[in-house]
């Protein structure tokens, strides 16, 4: 094997952070399988070529596995004549378990199979949340999928479909978790596997689940359907721990870093070093709980907020998800059925009403939130807005009926 010179990539072996280039070279130089040596060598060669010319040389195409339409990211080299061993270098996107938990046994099993059929390179994880098995030929894509699918792993989404979901570390190891992220994640995603595997929506649709408003999964900014845990009753205050915190950090510290940082001025410190919380005006932002982890905790009446329509720039600009369900309990099986039903309604509406390549947020921007809410049969709620409208250019023909509906609904839920 003639090794490609890689003077630029070699620079990335210097320095203290672990080097991905050193990993590629181990596959090229040390792996017992000649096929892997050759693939790694040509991959390094093409990447060096990109570094020298400052351009990428992969193009897409059509590769799938039997029975599915998506889940594979096809990559064919545009410079395959110079780097033939890595000229077909497709990615299999595989759905991880919620929270990205693994045992060494399952990781070894994946690695053992992947070095037989693929490049020996795996990314944990891609930005949508998939395990990315990077580097299979068209033929071996099916071979490898058959193996891992046989022991419980399935392809994720690619293209205009329901995408692989993500959820945080959750109730398994976080005291701030306000829902069973694991259950929500599996229930929602596994209800839509047909829409994951066979792209037929206007554009991508993402679910992300964060157990609390710290939103470690970045759900508000990135998910079409963000599920975020919160609580309804009073936050828990352990006054002895408050005093212990003050004796450790000082009164100035708690004033400067807790009391005055509350976005709704819902906190005050009494002369006897007890903390008072105006729970009616607490917006559950999490800041004080983040600072005083031993003294403060979420309440007991837990549930989730659902925000719809978050996405990055393309095409009309960044959009945050906005509140569509201010609070939903997730205690009983009926509660869980309700969240699945809401997701079904939203995806059905999206499928029928969005334009090609339009995300839910853009669709809502185009048609207005109220039309969307009427389409999915959700009633308006003042929690959905930062402010009511300020423009008076609006016809309000049905004001009386709408006002009556509001009072009727209030009376019903009271």
């Amino acid at each position, binding site marked *: 094997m003639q090794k490609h010179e890689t003077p*630029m*990539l070699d*620079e990335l072996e210097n*320095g*203290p*952070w*672990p*080097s*991905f280039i050193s*990993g590629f070279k181990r*596959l090229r130089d*040390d792996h017992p399988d000649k096929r892997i040596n050759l693939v790694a060598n040509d991959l390094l060669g093409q*990447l060096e070529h*990109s*570094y020298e010319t*400052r351009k*990428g040389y992969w193009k897409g195409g059509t590769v799938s*596995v*039997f029975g599915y339409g998506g889940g594979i*990211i096809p*990559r064919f080299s545009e410079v395959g004549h110079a780097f033939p061993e890595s000229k077909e270098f497709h990615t299999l996107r595989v759905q991880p*378990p*919620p929270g*990205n938990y*693994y*045992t*060494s046994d399952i*990781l*070894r099993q*994946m690695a053992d199979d992947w070095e037989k059929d693929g490049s020996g390179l795996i990314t*944990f994880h891609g930005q949508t949340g998939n395990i990315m098995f*990077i580097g299979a030929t068209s033929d071996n894509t099916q071979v490898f999928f*058959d193996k891992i*699918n046989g022991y419980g*792993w*399935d392809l994720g989404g690619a293209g205009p479909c329901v995408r692989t*979901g*993500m959820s945080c*570390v959750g109730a*398994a*190891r*976080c*005291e701030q*978790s306000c829902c069973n992220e*694991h259950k929500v994640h599996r229930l929602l995603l596994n209800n839509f596997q047909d829409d994951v595997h066979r792209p037929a929506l206007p554009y991508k649709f993402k679910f992300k689940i964060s157990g609390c*408003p*710290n939103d470690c999964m*970045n759900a508000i900014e*990135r998910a079409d359907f963000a599920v975020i845990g919160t609580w309804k009753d009073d936050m828990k205050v352990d006054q002895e721990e408050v005093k212990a915190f003050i004796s450790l950090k000082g009164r100035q510290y708690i004033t*400067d870093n807790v009391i005055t940082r509350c976005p709704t001025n819902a906190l005050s410190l009494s002369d006897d070093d007890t903390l008072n919380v105006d729970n009616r005006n607490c917006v559950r*932002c*999490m800041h004080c709980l983040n600072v005083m982890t*031993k003294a403060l*905790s979420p309440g007991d009446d837990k549930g989730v907020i659902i925000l719809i329509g978050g996405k*990055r*720039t*393309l095409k009309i600009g960044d959009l*945050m998800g906005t509140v569509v369900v201010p609070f939903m309990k997730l205690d009983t099986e009926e509660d869980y059925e309700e969240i699945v039903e809401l997701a079904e309604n939203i995806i059905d509406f999206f499928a029928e009403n969005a334009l*090609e*390549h339009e995300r839910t947020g853009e669709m809502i921007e185009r048609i207005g939130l109220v039309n969307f809410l009427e389409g999915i049969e959700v009633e308006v709620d003042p929690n959905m807005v930062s402010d009511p409208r300020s423009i008076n250019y609006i016809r309000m023909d049905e004001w009386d009926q709408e006002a009556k509906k509001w009072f009727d609904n209030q009376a019903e839920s009271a």
Partner: protein
Amino acid sequence: MSENKPRSPIESGVPDGFQYMHPSMLRNFGMWKYHEHPKPGVLLHVSKSGDKLWTVKIGTQRILDVYTIRVLCDIADNFADGYIRFTLRSNIEYCVADEAKVEPLIKAVEDAGFIVGGTANSISMISHTQGWLHCDIPGTDASGVVKSMMDELIDEFKTCTMPNRVHLTTSCCQINCGGQGDIAINVQHTKPPKINHDLVANVCERPTVVARCPVAAIRPAMVNGKPSLEVDEKKCICCGACYPPCPPMQINDPIHSQLAIWVGGNHSNARSKPTFHKLVAAGVPNNPPRWPEATAIVKQILKVYKEDAKDWERINDWIERIGWPRFFELTELPFTKYHIDNWTGSRKNLNASTYIRF
């Protein structure tokens, strides 16, 4: 069974993660009471049951070869009860239920060349994309940028001396798969696409491409007797949105595809509502293999933030308090006409008040 007979997939979807969780997590699911931060890279969670669970967090190169995976698995088996969890930012978390296992675990991880840190008010691993290694539309590499920057920021990964946590992201095109960040380093194109008119008719679905343009700058045209597309270069904002559906509209350029730096993206609801990041620097050369110019700006911003921000202020909180004029003054970055938003809804980003700091 015939070798040619295709196998139907088992549509199992998301696997059950409980089978891969540490037994202490199963026992204490939903019962955690509080956590402490004994030292950088280590978390201690305490359950209402009295159980304690220590987490050791480590940075990796994200793209793992099978050798590295096996090293990580060996460490898990010998020092961490056989369990491995990955975070959103591709850090690894090993968990142990016995305090005596923490130091041997840290030693094993560091002996193997991995970096312990990334907890609390540190700079965590840069969340990033695929770049030249595997994407079909990248303007730069991702793993190389991240490796270069993390080499320079490693001390802030290993310690917890920033005002609050710092999330960095990089993206190799303006689609910004890397996402929002306290600081985001993203490709910014500066010239319209170069069109190979011979290929457009065969490769591109032309109405789709026309529809994809955010500023309606693309229209169908006959060029050299062939159906193609043309770009109104005065209208074109050089975003590259036409390139994925139409590869003959090449947007990437070795010189003119540059980097821009954005700050103040924050997805947490803590203290204030989530924020998107804002432009602070552009015209940064896309300079492999080490991207020193981009790293220098990032380090300058971080230095000023570290000196000037109060405890618990994320970068957006800090700028909200000190104001943008002071930000540009302290970071010594130029403020230009390009910083003033002119997109739909941009007037909400203008100062409609008498609030001026002197």
